[in-house]
């Protein structure tokens, strides 16, 4: 079985931009959302004009699109240190207040990247042991606060590592960010919901089958009765 998996050809799925689009479709109007570094940041490209307020943990609500070169203000950046712009109704506050609102439960959703997600919804994303530092030090940043504070944690990531290993696992081998917090996993290959009864495969990328997704996912997937192609 393991050998069979290794021999399988690499599955082709959505681009990073389309993973972001699928997540944008998941976000509801009238909500406050925080986007993490990496694929999550791309979600902002798909929500212009929507009634969604982005929070930047540096201390801003209603963060606008990335600044064009002529608009760059060195005192106006997002948490990924990218120059951004203001939208009407935006406001600034301290980092301490920013995390008070995050822990306080005011974020309707946080979209975060991940190195691994477990079948129980444990998230591992802050520390890649391959950097060779002791296990307790690494770039935690705002990830642990967002993971425990947001009402809904959505993970955006590639389904497997660059060497083809599953990132959706029975138990995280990497140091975790938070326990049992992930509600939805959107990858290049599939949309998977984390439930009390295990992982539920809801959508697959065009041309793929549930068996394809299971072959690159460590825990057993429950197949949704209405399994469909990823809706974009």
């Amino acid at each position, binding site marked *: 079985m393991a050998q069979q998996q290794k021999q399988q050809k690499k599955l082709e799925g959505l681009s990073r931009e389309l993973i972001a689009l699928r997540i944008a479709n998941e976000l509801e109007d009238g909500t406050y959302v925080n986007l993490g570094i990496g694929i999550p940041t791309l979600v902002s490209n798909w929500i212009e004009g929507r009634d969604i307020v982005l929070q930047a943990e540096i201390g801003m609500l209603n963060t606008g699109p990335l600044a064009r070169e002529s608009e760059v203000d060195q005192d106006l950046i997002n948490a990924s240190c990218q120059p951004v712009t203001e939208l009407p109704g935006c406001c600034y506050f301290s980092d301490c207040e920013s995390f008070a609102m995050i822990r306080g439960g005011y974020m309707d959703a946080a979209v975060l990247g991940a190195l691994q997600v477990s079948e129980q919804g444990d998230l591992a994303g802050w520390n890649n042991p391959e950097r060779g530092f002791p296990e*307790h030090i690494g770039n935690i940043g705002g990830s642990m606060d967002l993971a425990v504070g947001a009402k809904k944690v959505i993970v955006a990531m590639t389904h497997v590592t660059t060497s083809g290993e599953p990132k959706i696992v029975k138990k995280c081998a990497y140091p975790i960010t938070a326990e049992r917090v992930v509600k939805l996993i959107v990858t290049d290959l599939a949309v998977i919901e984390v439930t009390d009864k295990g992982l539920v495969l809801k959508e697959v990328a065009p041309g793929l089958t549930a068996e394809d997704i299971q072959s690159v996912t460590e825990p057993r997937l429950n197949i949704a009765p209405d399994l469909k192609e990823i809706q974009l």
Partner: protein
Amino acid sequence: MDKAFTSIDEAVADIPDGASIVIGGFFTAGTPYQLIRALARHKAKNLTIMVQSFGPGNEDISQLVLQGQVKKAICNYPFYRSATRGARSAFERAVRSGKVEVEVYPMGTFIEKLRAGGAGLAAFYTPTGVGTVAERGKEKRTFNGRDYLLELAFRPDYALVHAGYGDRMGNLICRKTARNYTPDMAAAARITIASVEELVEPGELDPDKIHVPGIYVQRVVEVERLHYIPTIE
């Protein structure tokens, strides 16, 4: 009450060896670059430095590491995101060789420790970090069915912060997202030294728009506005 210094070097001159110092700035925004350079010229040693990062957006702080001034670093995002870039960093080399000790806290915990310190609180309970390496050695307690970790307040000797505008009484107004850690770091430290891009007379700042009340700021020094390109790499 006039807290203005004309010389930035005089403003940091009494920082002793072994001091604990918090330094403001979120990557590039609000980082007190000129005060960091003054601290490098001052050469105080065995310092405990509490700052978001020793990597992205904070090249000047490398000088403190290269000169062997830093004994311990307390951060929330200490390293470069890129392993290749990180391998060239003086800080990462010092950490790997054991020359600098590092503590890392989740960002919200990092700044709340300072808020609590400045507000006269000994500690607080946070749900952040439960079940992770961040809970090591900390008391865990359950309130209303949810687990929390006890985190101790932090009361540093000095804070180095930056603001767009300040008056001679130490009142500060920050610009946009450059506010970030400044108010809570200023309140936490026993002595806060603020660099400002525009120093004005009392009464010239709108009292309704002050972000840091002057009581938290002991020294203020005007510096030239530096221009830089915000980047994480």
